[in-house]
């Protein structure tokens, strides 16, 4: 068996049995990176020496019985918006192009405690603003299934790295679909947990009320295991919640009696025919396994995108004020006075999409427009949350597509930002309402590009989603680029 065939949980089990060493696993994944990276560009920073040093150290701890967890010894990739002490953390932006954090984000600390080998930092849309990973200051990432296409975004580097076996699993962050959509485009499993489940300490903020860290993984078992490892109640994040985190208990092949609602509006205009067919076929699979599947009307779907872009951009404009050339990151040269330095550092340091969002955010928060735009959006957010509450009074979960299409071609999205924003229609309301959502591969389109099935649950109901996704996966069978390539 090739080491790369293992899922994360399988690899850790094989390491504990002495069938593979942590160094062998790390070397195997580094060799794969060596072979694929020039074409795919999944990583902004790769720490080969550090990874091998960690591997040696972790192997000793496993041998000594100090590390016994289900992810011990498994190499992981981290999205480049999570701080890692001593390792470059850029947010794929020129403005943080030289930023080396002096502390590590809580989610990554939780992985380190569990014996993860940190390989490096993955490419993303600049400050997580984008749906294609093309707004990165360090070049686009390519979709491993077809390198003429985008991997999705903003966690595109993480999703592509998992799909191409350039890591065994990865962390991403999801503000409006940034884990689930690239997972869908790259044919891997991605989950955004309930807001507050994973600490945001050390995650460089985009839209603080919407941001959540979550896993990108080869299968649902890995996904549940990773989430269980990174979830923690953290006093350093005041929005962190105390809750159950025993997600792997839900890895049960049984959906009998589960009530699944399919919103009619999710299957209307704009949805690609292949995506529609495969997602509905997945619903049929769950129905055949005993779930009760029915259509219903979910209100306010069309208002989610304008609400999201108002709130997210408002928060971004405030969060990104801190990048001003004083304390860290890029500073413009030859400035005569302070204010000029702020403006020039930001203007030269941020890319066009980030500037666009900061400007919109500044506008909707400005005196005279605050009530009409920002406050209005917060009120509509309350209505959207209520509409989900009504749905979850009737259903255990909502089923739909993750994105209206499969991965678009490189360069097709950036020329029309509005069109790119509209692609977020199925993922975005989940963040507004703080809900958990998971994307699971459910087939490919006529061009061979993966399609993602999205399951959305009520707050704190990850286990229902994991159980349904796991049950679906058992019926579906293996799905990966490696399997497709016959390796």
């Amino acid at each position, binding site marked *: 068996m090739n080491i790369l065939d293992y899922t994360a949980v399988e690899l850790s089990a094989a390491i504990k049995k002495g069938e593979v060493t942590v160094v062998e696993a790390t070397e195997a994944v580094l060799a794969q990176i060596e072979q694929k990276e020039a074409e795919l560009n999944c990583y902004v920073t790769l720490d080969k020496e550090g990874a091998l040093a960690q591997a040696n150290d972790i192997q000793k701890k496993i041998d000594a019985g100090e590390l016994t967890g289900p992810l011990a010894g498994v190499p992981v990739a981290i999205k480049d918006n999570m701080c890692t002490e001593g390792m470059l953390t850029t947010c794929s932006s020129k403005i943080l192009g030289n*930023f*080396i954090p*002096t*502390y590590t984000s809580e989610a990554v600390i939780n992985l380190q405690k569990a014996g993860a080998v940190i390989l490096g930092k993955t490419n993303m849309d600049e400050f997580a603003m984008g749906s294609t990973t093309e707004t990165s200051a360090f070049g686009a990432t390519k979709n491993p299934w077809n390198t003429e296409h985008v991997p999705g975004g903003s966690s595109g580097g993480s999703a592509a790295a998992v799909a191409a076996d350039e890591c065994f699993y990865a962390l991403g962050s999801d503000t409006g679909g940034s884990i689930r959509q690239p997972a869908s485009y790259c044919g891997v499993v991605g989950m955004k947990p309930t*807001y*507050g489940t994973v600490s945001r300490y050390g995650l460089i903020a985009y839209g603080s*009320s919407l941001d959540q860290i979550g896993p990108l993984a080869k299968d649902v078992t890995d996904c549940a295991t990773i989430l269980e490892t990174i979830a923690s109640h953290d006093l350093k994040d005041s*929005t962190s*919640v105390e809750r159950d985190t025993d997600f792997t208990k839900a890895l049960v092949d049984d959906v009998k009696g589960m009530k699944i609602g399919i919103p009619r509006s999710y299957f209307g205009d704009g949805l690609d025919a292949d995506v529609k067919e495969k997602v509905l076929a997945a619903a049929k699979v769950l129905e055949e396994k005993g779930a009760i599947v029915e259509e219903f009307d979910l209100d*306010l779907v*069309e*208002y989610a*995108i*304008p609400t999201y*872009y*108002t709130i997210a951009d408002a928060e971004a*404009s405030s969060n990104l*004020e801190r990048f001003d*050339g004083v*304390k*860290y*990151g*890029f*500073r413009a040269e030859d*400035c*005569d*006075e*302070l*204010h*000029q*330095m*702020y*403006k*020039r550092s*930001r*203007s030269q340091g941020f890319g*066009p999409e980030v*500037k*666009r969002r*900061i*400007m*919109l*955010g*500044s*506008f*909707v928060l*400005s005196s005279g427009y605050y009530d009409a*735009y920002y406050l*209005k*959006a*917060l*009120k*509509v*957010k*309350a*209505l959207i*949350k209520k509409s989900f509450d009504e749905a979850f009074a009737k259903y255990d979960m909502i089923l739909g597509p993750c994105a209206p299409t499969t991965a678009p071609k490189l360069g097709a999205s950036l020329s029309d*930002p*509005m069109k790119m924003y509209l692609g977020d229609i199925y993922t975005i309301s989940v963040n507004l309402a703080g809900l958990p959502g998971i994307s699971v591969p459910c087939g490919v389109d006529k061009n061979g590009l993966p399609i993602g099935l999205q399951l959305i649950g009520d*707050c704190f109901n990850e286990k229902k989603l994991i159980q349904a996704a796991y049950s679906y996966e058992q019926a579906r069978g293996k799905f990966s680029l490696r399997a497709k390539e016959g390796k």
Partner: protein
Amino acid sequence: MANVITDETIDYVGILAKLELSAEEKEQAKKDLAEMLDYIDQLGELDTTGVEPMSHVFPVHNVFREDVVTNGDDRDNILKNAPEEKDGMFLVPNTF
């Protein structure tokens, strides 16, 4: 297009956002901002009379802890990423 963004508006937003825009960027920003605001205006179709603005999805408000210092002096670490520093402080150009 209902929203007409003037040069003055863009200049004002540039001040708020602390961005220095080229003439070309300003033209693009006028167009982009107007397009987005037109799109966002559809929220006006919804009657939100009496609806409380929701900033947090859970009913959590203030999270308090005891007012005791838990972190030590971290000055040297904090200054490690400073573009310029002097005598243990951030160094910036003239402020006036």
